[in-house]
């Protein structure tokens, strides 16, 4: 069965520093891949998605992610973190042959001055 692993439960970075959040997946074929962000007490907002083509995808709020088939990874990056980026980040893939999403457990990002 497909699965998503986010190895880092909690990451703390300084404002202005770069960020990389890790996501590994298990899937039978080339997957569709998503990153969502959730601010405290809020729903999920789509940051970016990969369907096919260019393996480096750009999203909202200055985020990007790179699909690496050989490593089964889809890591999220941002060159300079802002305090407003503090939130929970989820990586997700669809169920095989279906559209509902399977989510990782999330990575909580804290930003310090």
């Amino acid at each position: 069965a497909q699965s998503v692993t986010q190895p880092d439960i909690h990451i703390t970075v300084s404002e202005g520093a770069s960020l990389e959040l890790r996501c590994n997946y298990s899937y039978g074929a080339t997957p569709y891949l998503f990153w969502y962000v959730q601010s405290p007490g809020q729903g999920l907002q789509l940051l970016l998605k990969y369907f096919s083509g260019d393996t480096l995808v750009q999203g909202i709020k200055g985020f990007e992610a790179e699909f690496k088939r050989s490593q089964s990874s889809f890591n999220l990056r941002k060159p300079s973190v802002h305090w407003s980026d503090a939130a929970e980040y989820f990586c997700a893939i669809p169920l095989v042959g279906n559209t509902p999403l399977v989510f990782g457990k999330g990575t909580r990002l804290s930003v310090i001055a």
Partner: protein
Amino acid sequence: DAGVTQSPTHLIKTRGQQVTLRCSPKSGHDTVSWYQQALGQGPQFIFQYYEEEERQRGNFPDRFSGHQFPNYSSELNVNALLLGDSALYLCASSLKVGSRNPYEQYFGPGTRLTVT
């Protein structure tokens, strides 16, 4: 363009009671999925509706049921509430399978259910 809306925002119920949560999809979307998000966890898929029928179901007991109306809005019903049902319930809307982009889901703000 209205996004996905959910009501109520918060709800407190007692064990054994029943609850109904409501969702209106994003304009133009015809498919609604429900997810349960326990504290500190990622969302887990409950079920998906389109054309007023349940099309997919996750690993949830029959106490969880739903409905979709002709205007594509949806309800999630949970009977015989347990303490473990306390969670954030998220509704997501999308376009149905076979459309151009069925995998992209848009989420509402959620309903926080507390069972005491």
